[in-house]
């Protein structure tokens, strides 16, 4: 997904973090979305993405306010429908850098069909699924990723079912090409993951575990308190930990992102949260490339093809 020019730029031509900042975010203090926003602004700056060539598409929910805070193009669409809107954009405009911000309800509940099929289309875009395991904007209803037993306004005696596992689901779909998990409490790793996702040609799906300070402030406390419960996946083709982080997060696992079976095993774990690149396959074709017409629309071309078509249907009266 490289859209930027290869020519070096002078200092005053380079954009700063502020250049990518639009209005002041209205998320709650301590919301994980703020960290994601910072990481994305950093990515845009580091990659020097032209603001007019970058589009953030979102659905509905706390996560989906995201585009409003980026000084790029944005499309804040409908609940669950960010992905098909983004696909339409990418189909005709492969020159645009397309990002999708969606939530656990937006992506894994009302937009499930689109999510599953988006994996299969494998269009070149980065999908960030902000997973706080609860509906926040509508005030605390159980989402598909809400842990069983958790009390919410729609499950006052505790959520009835085991949660859906977004990583396992994604890894089960044909043409999956990039699956990663990040957590908002390790922002440095998040930046690394988002950067690799951005550079992957194809659909990069990142599940981002993030805290909802208002409704589930303590949900991830066990992982914050016990760093052993967060397992960092490292590999020469994945993440490489710097010595500082390496000291804190001792539970590290060498995982080859090309190994899908191992990726599925890791994804299935519930107590230990894997962080890093679970799966990557650069060979999967992108739908927009598969479907790209072999010719470019021109008035001359249309006129000729149209008249040829009409010839097939034309009747001339005899005699």
């Amino acid at each position, binding site marked *: 997904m490289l859209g930027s020019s290869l020519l070096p730029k002078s200092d005053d031509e380079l954009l700063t973090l502020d250049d990518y900042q639009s209005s002041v975010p209205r998320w709650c203090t301590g919301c994980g979305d703020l960290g994601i926003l910072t990481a994305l602004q950093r990515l845009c700056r580091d990659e020097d993405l032209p603001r007019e060539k970058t589009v953030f598409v979102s659905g509905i929910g706390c996560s989906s306010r995201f585009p409003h805070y980026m000084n790029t193009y944005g499309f804040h669409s409908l609940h669950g429908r960010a992905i098909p809107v983004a696909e339409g954009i990418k*189909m005709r405009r492969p020159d645009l850098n397309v990002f999708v911000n969606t939530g656990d309800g937006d992506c894994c509940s009302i937009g499930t069909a689109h999510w599953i099929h988006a994996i299969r289309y494998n269009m070149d875009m980065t999908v960030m699924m902000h997973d706080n395991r609860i509906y926040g904007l509508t005030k605390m209803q159980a989402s598909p990723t809400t842990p069983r037993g958790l009390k919410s306004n729609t499950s006052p005696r505790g959520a009835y079912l085991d949660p859906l596992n977004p990583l396992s689901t994604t890894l089960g779909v044909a043409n999956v090409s990039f699956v990663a998990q990040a957590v908002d409490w390790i922002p440095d790793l998040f930046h690394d993951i988002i950067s690799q996702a951005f550079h992957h040609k194809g659909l990069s799906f990142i599940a981002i575990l993030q805290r909802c300070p208002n409704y589930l402030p303590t949900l991830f406390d066990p992982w914050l308190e016990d760093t052993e419960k967060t397992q960092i996946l490292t590999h020469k083709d994945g993440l490489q930990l710097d010595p500082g982080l390496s000291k804190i997060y001792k539970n590290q696992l060498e995982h080859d992102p090309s190994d899908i079976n191992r990726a599925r095993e890791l994804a299935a774990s519930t107590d230990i949260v894997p962080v890093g690149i679970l799966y990557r396959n650069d060979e999967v074709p992108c739908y927009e490339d598969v479907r790209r017409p072999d010719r470019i629309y021109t008035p001359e071309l249309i006129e000729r093809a149209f008249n040829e078509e009409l010839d097939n249907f034309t009747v001339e009266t005899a005699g």
Partner: protein
Amino acid sequence: MTEATSTAEKKKSKKAPKAKAKGRKAQELKGHIVEVVSDSGEGAQKCGQSFATIGAKMGNGIWTVEIIPAEIQPPARSIEGASGIRIRMGSYYVTNGGDEADLVVAFNEQVLLGRVRYKELKKGCTILLEDKWRTDENPEIAKAYQETYDQLINDGFKVYEIPMEVECLKYVADPTRGKNMFVLGILVNIYSQDLQIARDQIAFIFAKKSAKIISSNIQLLEAGYDWAEENLDFRFKVPSAGIKEPQIVVNGNTAVGLGVMASGMEICAMYPITPATSASHYLSDVFESVGGTVHQAEDEIAACCFAIGASYAGKCAVTITSGPGYSLKQEGIGLAVMAEVPLVVVNVQRGGPATGQPTKMEQGDLLAAIFGSHGDAPKVVMAPSDMQDCFYSVIAARKIAETYHTVVVVLTDANIATAQQPFIRPKFQREWLAPPVDQSPVPEGVKPYDWDPKTGLATRFIPGRPGGMHTLTGLAHDRLSRVAYDPKINQEAIQHRSLKLAAFQQTLKTPKVYGDPEGDLLVIGWGSTKGTIEEAVERLRDEGKKVSSLHLRFLQPMASGLKEIMERFKKVMTVELSWCDSYEDEVIDADNRRYSNLAWLLRGRHLIDVDCWCEVKGQPIKPGSIERVLREKL
């Protein structure tokens, strides 16, 4: 191909004089309605379409209606399984499928019985019936045939039994494939069509097949022609309608596909649904030749949102669907209205609600199209009246959508979707095409929703335009596209989106009245019923009745001047294929009567007591039915 032509040439010299020598005197007709019915897969439609095309080449006015069973493989020899085609042929420009059929060819008596029961055949009409069932080894079949035959004779039909299978077996091993061409030969003879045009037509439709298949089918055609020449005691001729210009013969769905191609749209996103899908089939086949793409989405919602995304980032896109799919798209349509993204939605209406009658026609989606989506969602709704109009409407829809940054809904229906009618071959015009995508920098100070106070129009910022960065949103928003927190803003935004429709309305011309501009009764219709209503009106006018009709192409907004037209008539009524209650039902009165779609709209806007009459059988409405209703009304 060359071999086939030379075979055809040889045959021509051999056969043509023979036919001439034995020629019966042909009775001249103004027009005739022919039906060919068979079990599914026996090729009645191919036969009828060829017959129609030959008629068009002879200069006749033509309208064909497909007779479609609901299932892909319905049971053989069943009343419900009738598959076939009706061809109305005239020495005038034909605008609808007409009344009851004058001549029917049936491959078995059961499919024929269906047509009799549904009252599709004229009293005493001519029937050409495959007679092989009379001697079928299954006694029940033989009995059923005999009983039906006796009943038909009893009912006064002129039945000619034809040994189709026996004759075809002389030429081919499997007559189920080929009987249709034998029948075509019979029809070509009966209607005094040019045998050579028929031979050419066969060579054309089998162009992709081997020369052997072409010559075998031509042989069957000639066999049918000769059989009719030697065994039938009647012959007809429908003189040319004098159409000289080249025409194209397509159904409404193909016309929609051609319109998409000629409009310069580049993306069609769809999900399979009857009876709309054939438009997408056609586009899938040809769209790439002009650099376009048909995207089959995972569902109707995704198809709509995909088209919205494509429109947002480039040229206006189209999504094609039918009723149930349209219901699902309503959410996306609301988004396009709110975000002011151009979008063309084609709804090939079918019977509803729910799954309804997927292959049958109805005009029940007009109010859903106009008022659908929650909240105030103004959009343009137009309805083409025939195949030609399908083509031009899509081109117009693209232009309106892009000019007014709005949704344009094109309502066709199952009738024109599958019916064929020749129309003057369109001459391509560059101005039909969408302009190139604007990627110029946005001038400083211009806002993404800088609504013009008069027209409600704003500039559209397409991604890629430097300086135009903003977030388009389905939330209420202000001129900078920021989420609206100021209580005034939402009202202003709704006002301006509504103004766009009014601004567009100012460009519409008042439709012309068919008949005198004043009189006793004005009939108003919309969509595919135009030709049928006008034919009924014409018949009554010929008797001196003061009836006129008016047909609306734009339903939302509607042109000015309609009230003035209506006021010049003593009575006004609509004829629609959408339900209205009847006062004949005891419980119905003025306080609870539900009106047909258009009648509601006209009553509401113009405060005129517009009556209505409907038929929702799913079949194309007959001019005779409308004629009867108008007669009662006068």
